[in-house]
């Protein structure tokens, strides 16, 4: 298929056929014309064309996959039952999978070359790895939800604490109100410490650059490596053993804060770095001082990203067991005073529940895990909703809108000069989907037309 087209020749025929003068007359010979003009073919040259099917899937691929699957199942069954005494569904699955890959590559090799065969093998492996991980992870979550389903329907699970319920009591007694309240109090205190400190530090790292800021950034990055149990151990050894505070919700909040602070600073730092410098320069150019620039330009621009950073750090903080294990103490009753007495949180409650051999306690543990996951899920959904609009995305979307508008305007201009029928055809081709897609499609149209000419 030749890729060069004699545009002038086409247009001369076109003009002769329609009796009009197309814009091509104004263009000197040898000029490459906008591709839309190529659609101006006389009606008899334009056949209604089906858009080319772009899917890479062929019927033969599907058939060889199905054939390989059947063959591998049959061969494995024969192998397991007749030849080798291999037991267990896992061994069966592994052998069947290996045989499937072998059979499939043989089938593909029957009518494809080496590189294609390798491509297909990788395709199978990548798909199976991805499905393994997604199925396992979804299973991990569902497992907790299903095992916890026993405890969740009881309303008292959310309104009572465990002070009056022993391990042998049925699920209709006792609940995890103390852990829910404890988690909320601890995370609230931790956020009250980390949000002002973390965000101001992130602003500091970006707005007051220099050797000192670089040093702080390095230390903060180093502290993200701090294992959470060591954060707990630090608070335990300093606040509780050295300074003589009692194990309390406040100590737990401090341990969570030490763990959350570097995480929050790091992600907020990344978000603030994405603020376009043109915006800041514009603000300064209009006479705003640094504080006004930060307050009116930098923070509003990055608000959604900062909120996401906070929420994701919160999700980490809520879910961590080990710092709380060392610092909050354990209690079965509701305690709303963070400064005095032990205060339990959701992950710690799970941990303590499942230590018990009693099935009802284990069911409570799984129920608590379900509650904890719902809290994390809720935070995550909020983060996605707010953080979906990052600056980069917004900017990209704006660029796309501008390009699309320019594109449409150019097209509209081109279309105005076309005879009605080809205009209709061109419009049908171009408005099928997004602009980039449509451009590629109309790219392929002229070469097809070349055959018809």
């Amino acid at each position, binding site marked *: 298929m030749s890729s060069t087209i004699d545009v002038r020749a086409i247009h001369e025929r076109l003009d002769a056929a329609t009796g009009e003068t197309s814009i091509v007359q104004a263009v000197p010979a040898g000029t490459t014309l906008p591709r839309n003009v190529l659609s101006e073919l006389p009606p008899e040259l334009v056949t209604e064309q089906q858009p080319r099917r772009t899917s890479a899937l062929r019927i033969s691929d599907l058939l060889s996959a199905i054939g390989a699957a059947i063959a591998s199942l049959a061969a494995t069954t024969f192998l397991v039952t007749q030849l080798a005494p291999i037991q267990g569904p896992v061994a069966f699955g592994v052998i069947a999978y290996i045989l499937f890959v072998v059979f499939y590559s043989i089938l593909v090799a029957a009518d494809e070359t080496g*590189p294609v065969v390798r491509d297909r093998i990788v395709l199978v492996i990548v798909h199976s790895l991805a499905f393994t991980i997604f199925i396992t992870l979804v299973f991990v979550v569902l*497992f907790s939800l299903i*095992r916890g389903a026993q405890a969740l329907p009881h309303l008292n699970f959310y309104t009572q604490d465990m002070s009056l319920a022993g391990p042998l009591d049925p699920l209709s007694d006792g609940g995890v109100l103390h852990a829910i309240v404890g988690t909320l109090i601890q995370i609230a205190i931790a956020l009250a410490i980390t949000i002002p*400190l973390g965000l*101001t530090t992130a602003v500091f790292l970006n707005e*007051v650059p220099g050797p000192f800021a670089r040093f702080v950034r390095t230390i903060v990055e180093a502290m993200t490596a701090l294992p959470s149990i*060591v954060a707990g151990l630090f608070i335990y050894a300093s606040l509780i053993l050295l300074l003589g505070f009692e194990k309390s919700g406040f100590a737990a909040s401090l341990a969570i804060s030490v763990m959350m602070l570097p995480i929050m600073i790091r992600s907020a730092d990344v978000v603030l770095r994405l603020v376009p410098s043109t915006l800041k320069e514009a603000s300064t150019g209009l006479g705003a001082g*640094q504080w006004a620039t930060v307050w009116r330009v930098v923070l509003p621009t990055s608000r959604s990203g900062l909120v996401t950073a906070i929420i994701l750090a919160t999700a980490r903080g809520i879910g961590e067991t080990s710092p709380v294990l060392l610092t909050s103490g354990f209690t079965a009753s509701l305690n709303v005073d963070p400064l005095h007495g032990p205060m339990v949180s959701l992950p710690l409650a799970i941990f303590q529940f*499942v230590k018990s051999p009693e099935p009802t306690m284990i069911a409570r543990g799984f129920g608590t895990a379900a509650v904890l996951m719902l809290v994390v899920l809720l935070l995550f959904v909020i983060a996605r909703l707010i953080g979906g609009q990052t600056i980069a995305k917004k900017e990209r979307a704006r660029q796309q809108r501008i390009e699309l508008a320019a594109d449409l305007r150019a097209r509209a201009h081109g279309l105005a000069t076309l005879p009605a029928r080809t205009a209709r055809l061109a419009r049908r081709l171009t408005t099928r989907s997004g602009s980039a897609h449509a451009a590629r499609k109309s790219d392929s149209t002229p070469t097809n037309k070349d055959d018809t000419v």
Partner: protein
Amino acid sequence: MTLDTPRKLSLLRDPVDLLFRGVARTAGITVLAIMSLVGLFLAYRATQALQVAGWSFFTEQSWEPDAGKFGIAAVLVGTILIALVAIVIAVPLATGTALYITDYAPRRIKQTLIGLVDLMAAIPSVVYGLWGFFFLQGNITDISRWISHTFGWIPIFAVDGADPNDPLASSTVYTSSTFIAGIVVALMIAPIITSIMREVFSQAPVGEREGALALGSTKWGMIRSVVIPFGLGGMIGGTMLGLGRALGETIAVYMIISPVFVIQPHILQAGASSVSSLIALKYGEATEFGTSALMAAGLALFIMTLIINFAASAIVARSRSGASS
């Protein structure tokens, strides 16, 4: 003739700007102080124990600080083994999943998958621990038995006290092992690694991708010649960040393993150990000196994850894919 002297530039800041810079700097100093306090306090308390133990801290296996006989040889080896099992399982899974999301998944479900992976990274570790303890522990022994039966001649897969020819043998020798803890940690870190790898893979330049395809490459050929070389730094960095998380993981490991204080190289056999579960296990009964011994163990763990994290960020920053970020 007068020479043009460059105009003197001076910056007169508004009082409110000076205040802002002061407040920001104070926050930076506060954070620095807190972080240094954590590090210095750890180091200070750890030296008390280290002075007593000396170099035997790194060679001694048992943990009896009040008898003056304690070291991290066993727990450190245990930690590294668990992390290695986790990495060996998680990295292929994560690479496959990241490639699936960037190159193979239908466009419709791509965003959903990305969200799912990110959500999985935020699932609390205690949930993974529950799954490992109540589900995996009971169902994995067949695989453990099969591996030790087939590959038992490789030392790390050997299991003492197990008779593979006795079908009625108790499976308890295979529970609470490094292998099971490693699988659980692998599931925990796989979403984190996947998320980083997906990010770098998706940044592979479109021009080079399309160039490879236009030259007649298959999809795998394109991935091998463009995506993976481009994302290699990110792959290594993501793996090391996952390794850092795996080393520090406490609660899921603590729920599964039955702690032993000898070097346990047989990963399929019951009994394992890790630094963080040592701290969780011993902090309650520790005397003041015992606490400082735990601090020393925690410090060793911290320094190890610190080195790995810095190496990871250095690799990512030097690689082509990380240059822009």
